[in-house]
């Protein structure tokens, strides 16, 4: 059962091949047995999941079940879940039980989805290796000495290890796509504004976007449809109709214009990685697509721009964690200042502090123009580059991450090297565009991802491009062996 895709599970449940309860119990047993090593879950909500599975089975038997009734998934621990601990991977929220559900959680539940638990993540989604979590690093099921990527590393590892068919994630600079690539699965970050951010603990509000990590593009299409759409509680969520993504899958790629960013292919991309991308392009050409080189002249500004904008927003977003109303509170504070300093000093980890300090600095009097304002301008330039490119091509295809999964501890002491992991993904967030990563090969037994970027609100197209690719290849169907088989 655990090898099946989410779409396959939904079909099997409807055909009564197995019950949701059987499936949920089986997956819970796998989590129990395998996650000790993987550490992909912070919280497992087994009892509630079994109860929900029984209810779903009754609905399925009654024939009145919603489309994804009884399908189990996991939520990244950044989404607020009523009555369930929501930690955001931080000691700061180790004691935080959310009083409400995020819109994403609510909508998926309405579609029938069952939550198995909450997945581990980089603290407050700040990291590219899942090593900044207060709950310890997550390991990559393809090689337990390596990282699964981050910040949605727990979600990626759990899906790759087939502990759960799919999981939600969030992507601020690549936090869905990069771990999807490093774990050999599919991950989509929709257009900014497509999915409500209400109840998703904010890292960098102008960049954060919820999405999903799945085995296939088809699975992603099903979940994305269920979670997208306007939410009056999020002013930045866009009021536009949500297409039936799954219904659009399978369309021909004949005449599709694919752009390949020369700045991505020429600069320091590993030869094996480049070969995997080239091979994928051949597949698309065989399907009738045309490939052309395009230039994003300002894309080199992405990483420095991001590391001004994101820390600036996070320094403000994380001010609410002050030990006063919720979360970690220092013991026996002497006075107000001591309460603040120790609650935050003890509650936040090093990477979070580094970003809060960076962000505070770039917003401070005398530096605002030189950093924050300048970054806003270069962000406009990057967005304009993409707009121009999409006048001539339909999708942009290239690498997701410069390297396959690296070893635990390899980059953790060198933030700049760590930040460069997101060199191909960050520009997409700065431009607010949808991006997807799908497995496209292996280097030394480690998966490599192919990034497909689309125009704003053109998720349907990038899902279809990935789906057609997955119909022609089987990289996505490969799963880690050994204990995880």
């Amino acid at each position: 059962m655990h090898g099946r895709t989410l779409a396959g599970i939904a079909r099997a449940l409807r055909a009564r091949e197995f019950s949701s309860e059987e499936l949920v119990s089986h997956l819970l047993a796998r989590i129990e047995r395998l996650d000790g090593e993987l550490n992909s879950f912070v919280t497992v909500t087994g009892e509630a999941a079994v109860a929900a599975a029984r209810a779903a089975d009754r609905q399925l038997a009654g024939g009145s079940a919603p489309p994804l009734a009884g399908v189990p998934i996991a939520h990244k621990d950044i989404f607020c879940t009523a009555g369930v601990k929501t930690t955001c991977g931080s000691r700061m929220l180790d004691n935080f039980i959310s009083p409400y559900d995020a819109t994403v959680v609510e909508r998926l539940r309405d579609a029938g989805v069952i939550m198995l638990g909450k997945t581990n993540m980089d603290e407050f989604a700040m990291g590219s290796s899942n090593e900044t979590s207060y709950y310890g690093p997550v390991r990559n099921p393809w090689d337990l000495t390596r990282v699964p990527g981050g910040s949605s590393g727990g979600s990626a590892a759990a899906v790759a290890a087939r502990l759960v068919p799919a999981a939600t994630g969030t992507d601020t600079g690549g936090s869905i796509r990069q771990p999807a690539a490093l774990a050999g699965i599919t991950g989509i970050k929709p257009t900014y504004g497509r999915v409500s951010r209400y109840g998703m603990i904010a890292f960098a509000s102008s960049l954060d976007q919820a999405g999903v990590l799945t085995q296939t593009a088809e699975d992603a299409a099903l979940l994305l449809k269920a979670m997208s759409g306007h939410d009056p509680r999020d002013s930045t969520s866009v009021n536009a109709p949500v297409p039936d993504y799954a219904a659009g899958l399978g369309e021909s790629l004949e005449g599709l214009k694919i752009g390949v960013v020369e700045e991505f292919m020429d600069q320091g991309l590993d030869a094996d990685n480049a070969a995997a991308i080239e091979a994928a392009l051949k597949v698309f050409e065989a399907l009738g697509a045309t490939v052309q080189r395009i230039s994003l002249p300002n894309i080199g500004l992405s990483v420095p721009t991001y590391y001004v904008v994101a820390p600036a927003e996070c320094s403000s977003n994380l001010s609410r964690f002050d030990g006063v109303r919720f979360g970690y509170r220092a013991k026996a504070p002497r006075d107000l200042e001591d309460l603040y300093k120790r609650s935050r000093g003890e509650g936040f980890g090093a990477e979070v502090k580094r970003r809060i300090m960076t962000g505070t600095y770039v917003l401070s009097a005398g530096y605002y123009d030189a950093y924050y304002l300048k970054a806003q301008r270069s962000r406009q330039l990057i967005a304009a580059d993409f707009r121009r490119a999409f006048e001539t091509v339909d999708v942009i295809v290239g690498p997701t991450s410069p390297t396959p999964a690296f070893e635990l501890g390899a980059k953790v002491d060198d933030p700049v090297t760590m930040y460069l992991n997101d060199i191909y993904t960050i520009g997409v967030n700065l431009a607010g565009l949808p991006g997807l990563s799908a497995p496209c090969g292996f280097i030394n037994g480690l998966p490599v991802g192919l990034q497909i970027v689309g125009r704003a609100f053109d998720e349907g197209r990038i899902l279809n491009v990935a789906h057609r690719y997955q119909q022609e290849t089987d990289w996505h169907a490969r799963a880690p062996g050994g204990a995880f088989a």
Partner: protein
Amino acid sequence: MEWETVIGLEVHAQLATRSKIFSGAATAYGAEPNSQACLVDLGYPGVLPVLNEGVVKMAVAFGLATDSTIAPRSVFARKNYFYPDLPKGYQISQYELPIVHDGRIELQFEGGVRKTIGITRAHLEEDAGKSLHEDFQGQSGIDLNRAGTPLLEIVSEPDLRSAREAVAYMKAIHQLVRYLGICDGNMQEGSFRCDANVSVRPVGRHKFGTRAEIKNLNSFRFVERAILFEVERQIDILESGGSVVQETRLYDPDRDETRPMRSKEEANDYRYFPDPDLLPLDIDAALVAEVRAGLPELPWRKRDRFIDEYGLSEYDAVVLSTSRAVADYFESVAAGLDDKKLAANWVMGDLAGALNKAGLDIVDSPLGPSTLLGLLRRIEDQTISGKIAKEVFEAMWSGEGDADAVIESRGLRQIKDTGSVEAVIREVIAANPQQLEQYRSGKDKLFGFFVGQVMKATGGKANPALVNELLKKLLAG
């Protein structure tokens, strides 16, 4: 040396919405602590602000009423600082691009003197909560009911030149926001308060002196007292060779002085930046037109109309246009009378006095405009005299019914027939032969004595004009 005072005011008007500026929680005053704070107000992880559209219309109304520019696009920004009553660690405000800017308001002083004061800007923001330092031994309590309450911060140009002008400006803004119905103006509850930027400079110098900002003045009197104290303090410093320090000060009404706030609170670098959770606020011409169409008649227009239309004095017109409720009351009464001044006198005089004594607002008056009109009509048609009317008014106030009922039951109808009045006069003359003699020998002053006697004898009911006329004739013999 001669000194000139320079003052700019920042008025904080709480907008009269039922729910908060970025959440659905109620804004009612005086609820149990923290009973009107939802997850958004509490700054819970993951929650997001959503703008209450009511506040936008209110700000636009203020902008239109002050001849301001309404920004087609304004931006909400975060003002970052830590304080326990500021749940998110930042206040959502407007910084570089406020919703309203470059306006003006005209002040009116005795003797027809007028002065226009510039309004630099007016921006929307959320209020913080309240820290309660009493009743919590060694600790502080936090009440977040007020957190997220909508405010319009109205910043004047440094055009005010005295405490008197500052008070007049604050009163004009107070009157305006109440006219517009965008603020209840309740200063005790903190719905209307201001900060004053005060400096002095030698007369004739162009450059401004160093200013002090006096925070949280919540009465007209405090504004005046605080500025007077502060001006004197700064002049003393400068005249003794010192220099004024730019700082934030607090006014202590008990000691009638201003004192510096702890300097630490000023060292804040607020790190303003556009709030990424809120889209830029776009205001189109249609919305502005809609708000414009719904604007009430503004106080200064009403004042001018009262002078033109009703022939009132400027003083009366100003008093009667103080608030919409008073003006409306006056106009309903005046509409039924030929003598508009009569309506003005009664609304400003006996009615205002009685309301004041009872501590009532005019909208809660036990006597409505039509009831008062019923009384004034009886003066106008000479059923009763103005003096008797006061007695009738008191009886009406204490619930004895309308004017006609009181006049009837108390038998107060004016005596207007010549025969009856003449009979009384003859009696009075007969009873006072000595005074008659004195009068006839040239002591004209005694005329008043005879009038008084006649009135006394008729219980004040004799028609005064008739009494005068007949008395003159009969005294002459």
